[in-house]
């Protein structure tokens, strides 16, 4: 079996797990923490190595003694039991010694904790919002200020369901990666829209829960350009496994170019939001929006998965007054899995997807919901 072969082949690498940091670039890590690319991650890496060695030493010490006894002090070997059952000096010694070892461990840890928490003087601040089940990025300050986009898994469903061969970056690839310049201090502030998520990029040593209604922060700075992958690290419901994080660290020039491109895209978007659309145009665009945002729950055929995920096909809400539906889509249904999509999608996207649901499957209202309706709904 190929697994077995690969594991056997990997066995020697196990003994090399410690020096692995030197050979950092050889693909994703298997045995140890991922190769660190920030100072914090490097601290963590080294601290873990240190802890592992200390624990290993204690382990060998304690179990060396125990197995010596197991082998030599056996009744079957004629051992007779001694009668001692306490020794104050020894007992004090083995209480104090661990305390000292622990102090040795606590010292580097304390320094790292303090460094990790220092999010001041950032060059760029990005707000990261967890949604069920994608990430929203919002460049709040620094170069690129004002850029905002959503980032969702880009692995096709077919690969997940085994209908297509799995790609190299299976489940750790997204449609719109976060892009940041190398060498700059990036402050990531996290929050969430529905439930708790956690934004985690192992190579940066940064993991921060994203808590609905609260802002938390973390930071990273790396000189090493490249693509870094992570995942949501807090159970957030059905698709928790499917909301990865992809960060591209690029040169200063490439970053400037990326910012310019995003700006141009944003201009086009706002143009979309302010014009009138034809029904067919809306339905075509809405289908894509539906597939990316709604389909996981309400299903491609609009039948949903009742009772948790109600059907849209034939739904009274969808067939009723458009403002009712706009309200639910914008603000969600508290206490259910129906999220508020208002903060996530543009007016044009919302108009498109609502129009799509009102004109698909057996639904045929023939009604086009315009971005202007959404704008009105946002106010109301």
């Amino acid at each position, binding site marked *: 079996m190929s*697994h077995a072969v690969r*594991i056997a082949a990997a066995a020697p690498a196990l003994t090399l797990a410690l020096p692995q940091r030197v050979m950092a670039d050889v693909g*994703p*890590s*298997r*045995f*140890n923490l*991922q190769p660190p690319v920030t100072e914090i991650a490097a601290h963590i890496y080294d*601290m*873990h190595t240190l*802890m*592992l060695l200390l*624990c290993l030493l204690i*382990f060998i010490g*304690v179990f060396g*003694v*125990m197995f010596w006894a*197991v082998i030599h*002090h*056996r*009744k079957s070997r004629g*051992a007779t039991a*001694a009668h*001692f*059952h*306490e020794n104050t000096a020894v007992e004090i010694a083995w*209480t104090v010694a*661990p305390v000292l070892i*622990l102090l040795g*461990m606590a010292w580097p*840890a*304390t320094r790292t*904790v*303090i460094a*990790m*928490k220092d999010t001041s003087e950032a060059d760029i601040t990005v707000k990261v919002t967890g949604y069920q089940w994608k990430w929203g990025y919002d460049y709040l300050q620094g170069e690129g200020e004002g850029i905002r986009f959503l980032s969702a898994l880009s692995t096709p469903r077919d*690969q*997940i369901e*085994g209908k297509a061969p*799995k790609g*190299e970056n*299976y489940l750790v690839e997204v449609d719109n990666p976060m892009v940041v310049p190398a060498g700059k201090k990036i402050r990531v502030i996290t929050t969430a829209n529905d439930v*708790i998520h*956690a934004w985690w990029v192992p190579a940066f*040593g*940064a*993991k921060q829960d994203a*808590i609905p209604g609260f802002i*938390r*922060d973390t930071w990273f700075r790396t000189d090493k350009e490249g693509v870094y*992958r*992570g*995942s949501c*690290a807090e159970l957030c*419901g*059905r698709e*928790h*496994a499917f909301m990865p994080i992809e960060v591209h660290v690029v040169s200063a020039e490439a970053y400037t170019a990326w910012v310019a491109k995003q700006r141009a895209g944003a201009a086009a978007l706002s143009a979309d939001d302010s014009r009138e659309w034809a029904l067919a145009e809306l339905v075509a665009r809405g289908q894509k929006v539906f597939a990316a945002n709604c389909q996981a729950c309400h299903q491609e055929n609009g039948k949903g998965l009742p*009772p948790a995920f109600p059907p849209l096909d034939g739904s009274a809400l969808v067939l009723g007054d458009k403002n009712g539906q706009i309200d639910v889509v914008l603000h969600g249904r508290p*206490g259910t899995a129906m999220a508020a999509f208002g903060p996530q999608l543009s007016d044009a996207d919302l108009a498109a997807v609502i129009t799509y649901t009102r004109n698909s499957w057996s639904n045929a209202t023939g009604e086009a919901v315009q971005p202007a309706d959404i704008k009105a709904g946002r106010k109301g």
Partner: protein
Amino acid sequence: MAAVTPEQLHGHPHPPAGLMRWVTTTNHKDIGTMYLLFSFVMFLSGGVMALTIRSELFQPGLQIVQPEFFNQLTTMHGLVMVFGAIMPAFVGFANWMIPLMIGASDMAFARMNNWSFWLLPPAAILLLGSFFVPGGATAAGWTLYAPLSVQMGMGMDMAIFAIHIMGLSSIMGAINIIVTVLNMRAPGMTLMKMPLFCWTWLITAYLLIAVMPVLAGAVTMILTDRHFGTSFFNAAGGGDPVMYQHIFWFFGHPEVYIMILPAFGIVSQIIPTFARKPLFGYASMVYATASIAILSFMVWAHHMFSTGMPVVGQLYFMYATMLIAVPTGVKVFNWVATMWRGALSFETPMLWATGFIFVFTIGGFTGLICAIAPIDIQIHDTYYVVAHFHYVLVAGSLFALFAGAYFWLPKWTGRMPDERLGKLHFWSSMVFFNITFFPMHFLGLAGMPRRIPDYALQFADFNALATVGAFGFGLSQLIFIAVVVKSMRAGERAAAKPWEGAEGLEWTVPSPAPHHTFEHPPVVA
């Protein structure tokens, strides 16, 4: 006193026969047996869920179950194992052994004892039944974090009420144990002469009384947030989702020691028996147990380093957590010192106990690594944590339970457990346990999150290995059924004191222990 006739004092009216005997019994041995049976059935149910989880994780991709159902399985596996298997099993041991060890005729409140047990099946029905209601069981993880748990369907409410009922059962059970230990010891049995198992249970019972009501409060708040419009865990109403975590872990961390302290007690009975040498450092064992219990109330937020606590919070919880290694270390050293220069023999109970020390300590070390806040920020919510807690829970609590079962089976059934089968059970469990859970350390370090039904490709090999191990481990547990059945029917008859080095009152009564023991308290010198 005229109303008390001699027959009431000495004769025992015939208890109801058949099923009604078990339903109405006030006998601690009957009740202990029911606890043990119940917990084993729950262990099998939780195990089947674990195997389904492992099967789905055998390969990348979704094969067997849908993500939603996978999350339900993970959640219920955790809940069933913790509340259904491990905790009741220890209560079963307490019921059987504490009265025998302290020379009491029964538990202090025999009728309430019956109720404590019979509350568990209703709780189990609610919990397991929730799989079959619309929307399925709760899928918010065994920690039931809000606000995810606020989104769930009716299965969540059933779990909440199940937890209330189990909490009631645990509180009554704990009160019973405390009162029995404090009030019913035979004359001469001072606290510091008491077998260590009684000590660990006494302290565990205090933990239970202190934290089960807090859990009940936490899930009650979820219930009202779900249905009655309160805002405990909702920022828009001025609450805080993280507050749930504080309340939960104020329960949750002592809870994990609830699941390990009695295990320490069992091991502390077995090691001296087979070393034929008194337990080293009895007094320091007692103090260490108490220290662990007290510390356990002060470390809860080490489960929450990644929520983003202030620096002082992180540092405090890190230091406090690290301190627990000290009293736990004292225990490990004492066991090793007990074995040192003993006359050791390795019958099945001793094998399990020795194996326990060895593998539990690995779990303790990984716990310590988790306690280092910066490292924990990397490995929190990854398979490293899964590896950690299965080392302490399976190789810790479960192995100690097996050790205790082999140790006291002669007293329960009157026959010796089959040594060959017992040893086979031990060795195959030990090997497969490590095949299952050791690779999870690597998975976690390399970055595999927990509670996911599907994963990136670099994790495939170790997951496959873990799955193979899990099936091996599961099959090994069937051997235990064979051992128990065999020792109920056939097998060598056991003497009152079947183990040469055993000490204690429980070995002064015949094997199997008669229905009523110590009706007149023995006097302990």
